[in-house]
């Protein structure tokens, strides 16, 4: 198993009370999987993805990522894991406005300690892979939404991560651009990438191989009942 979540809970303190956002989540993701997590607004999708993406740690439970119990890792180790094993794609792209497309894509490699020359080469390849080989020196404000999201995907994939997390990757795009992104995901998955995608659109979720539902912090698989890996 690449990812294995066991009895994961996440609470947020809210004044004197606590909000129980995730409740006993059990989920396994194999290498090469392409899963979608669906659910209504406020159901805990982003919270779950933050945990799986090592941006946050659970209140209780174990989370094994690539053989390592991430629930117990410290800040520095989490940063290393995010840098080396995880790629993120966000709803609103989050490109740095003062860096060109290629520099945005190369940024994770900088944190990985890759040499400048190699960074440029690998970033260029990553941009070519998302079909933007002719726009490497464009600034973010010169790119369309779909192109921006593809730059973000190139940035996520440039480190050859173990898993790609995407939180509403088409949420800010028109349907044509959205479809293009879904085609790109399918292609990446066909080439071996593991993808965990969050969405509340059925048509988008249908692109994945497996669909999970989350409601009030509880996860269930499409074929009914609580999933147990």
């Amino acid at each position, binding site marked *: 198993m690449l990812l294995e979540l066991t009895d994961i809970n996440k609470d947020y303190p809210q004044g004197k009370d606590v909000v129980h956002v995730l409740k006993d989540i059990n989920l396994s993701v194999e290498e090469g999987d392409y899963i979608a997590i669906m659910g209504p607004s406020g159901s805990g999708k982003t919270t779950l993805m*933050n945990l799986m993406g090592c941006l946050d740690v659970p209140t209780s439970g174990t989370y094994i990522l690539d053989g390592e119990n991430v629930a117990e890792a410290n800040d520095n180790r989490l*940063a290393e894991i995010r840098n080396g094993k995880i790629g*993120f794609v966000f709803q609103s792209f*989050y490109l*740095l406005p003062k860096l060109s497309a290629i520099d945005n894509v190369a940024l994770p490699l900088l944190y990985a300690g890759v040499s400048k020359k190699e960074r440029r080469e690998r970033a260029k390849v990553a941009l070519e892979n998302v079909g933007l080989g002719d726009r490497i020196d464009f600034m973010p404000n010169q790119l369309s939404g779909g192109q921006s999201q593809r730059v973000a995907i190139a940035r996520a994939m440039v480190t050859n991560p173990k898993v790609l997390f995407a939180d509403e990757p088409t949420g800010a795009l028109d349907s044509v651009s959205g479809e293009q992104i879904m085609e790109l995901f399918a292609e990446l998955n066909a080439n071996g990438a593991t993808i965990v995608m969050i969405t509340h659109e059925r048509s988008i979720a249908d692109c994945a191989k497996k669909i999970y539902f989350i409601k009030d912090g509880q996860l269930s698989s499409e074929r009914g009942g609580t999933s147990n890996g």
Partner: protein
Amino acid sequence: MFENITLSFQSVWSHKVRSFLTMLGIIIGIASIITIVSTIKGTNDQIKQNLIGSGVNAVVVSLYQDDYQYDMQYSPVPSGVSVLTEEDREELLKLEKIESVSFFNKRSWADNVYYQNTAYSGEVYGVDEYYFDIYGYKLSYGRFFMDSDYAENRKVLLIDSTVCQNLFGGANPIGETIEIGEDAFTVIGVIGQSSEFTPVINSLSDYYMYMDQSGGKMFMPYSTWPVVYRFDEPQTVAVGTASTDDMTKAGQVAADYLTSNKITSSTFSYRSQDLLEQAKQLQEMSTSTNRQLVWIAGISLIVGGIGVMNIMLVTVTERTREIGLKKAIGAKKKRILRQFLTEAAVLTSLGGILGVIVGIALAQLLSYLMQTPTAISVPAIIIAVVFSMIIGILFGLIPAVKASNLNPIDALRRE
């Protein structure tokens, strides 16, 4: 690191006006410090040049009571201190480093000295024939003292050019009569030092006062002194040396000799006050008055630092998303911390460099307008720039720590 610096420059450059306003406090602080330090150094260099470089290697050894110089003008002839004799002169000449010796009496602010109705308030000396050699006096016109002037206690005077100017308006004074107390003296010559102390310094009130004391000098033969003033006044000793470096030593041995051989009272002593030492004291005075100004300028640096901190905090808030994204894709705390510290340091260092340039320009302008001396101090410039960098790091610390501690989830959530 280099990457960080380049990025910081870009960031500073992309907010030109804001960066400049932020730097202003640092610029003003550093500029004032550089101006002050340049003036201090210029003044000190000039004091040294004026005092030491005058070509006169003379140490004055004078009588002290307790720790105060004994002033014959307002005090009685001291008991337990004997007058110096020809024998003492010979003994002193045998001592280490001493090349020449002169004994003299002196009144610093002479009373009752008149030329016609004009009062004179300069110095009056009673000197032996060696005095003029040691201090490098040359005759401008008239004549020097002759043996017979000394032998017959003649009431004759040599005056310097200042007196000549003040009392006679530059007209030929030879043969004119100056009254000292009840006695009429005849001016026989005008003398001047080959390289006179020329006070060019106006900035330093202390130095000015010191220079002001030489409102002119007039000299009579030492043997005439008791006729006007008193008998048995112990003399002051001027010791001449071959080089400037010998002055301190020669002064000490002369003072030791005189203290142990000519004084029986325990409250009196002879002490040397060589020019090297005086120069140092003057320099210290000028430095310590100006050091207070440096403190004041330092406060403006702190205010500048607070301004930098304020703007950096704003920057961190503005760039929350950038920080969150960077952390999400794997930037560690340390890297974010370094990025913001570098940015603050680049900002203040740039301010420091601009401050140095403004400071030097200001010192030059001041020097031009007020005739104060100025000198560029390279160590001060280096310290100023390094110091402003440190201020950036110090005051950038809180914003940088704040940035590095941002939680990536919260940072990304914020739109």
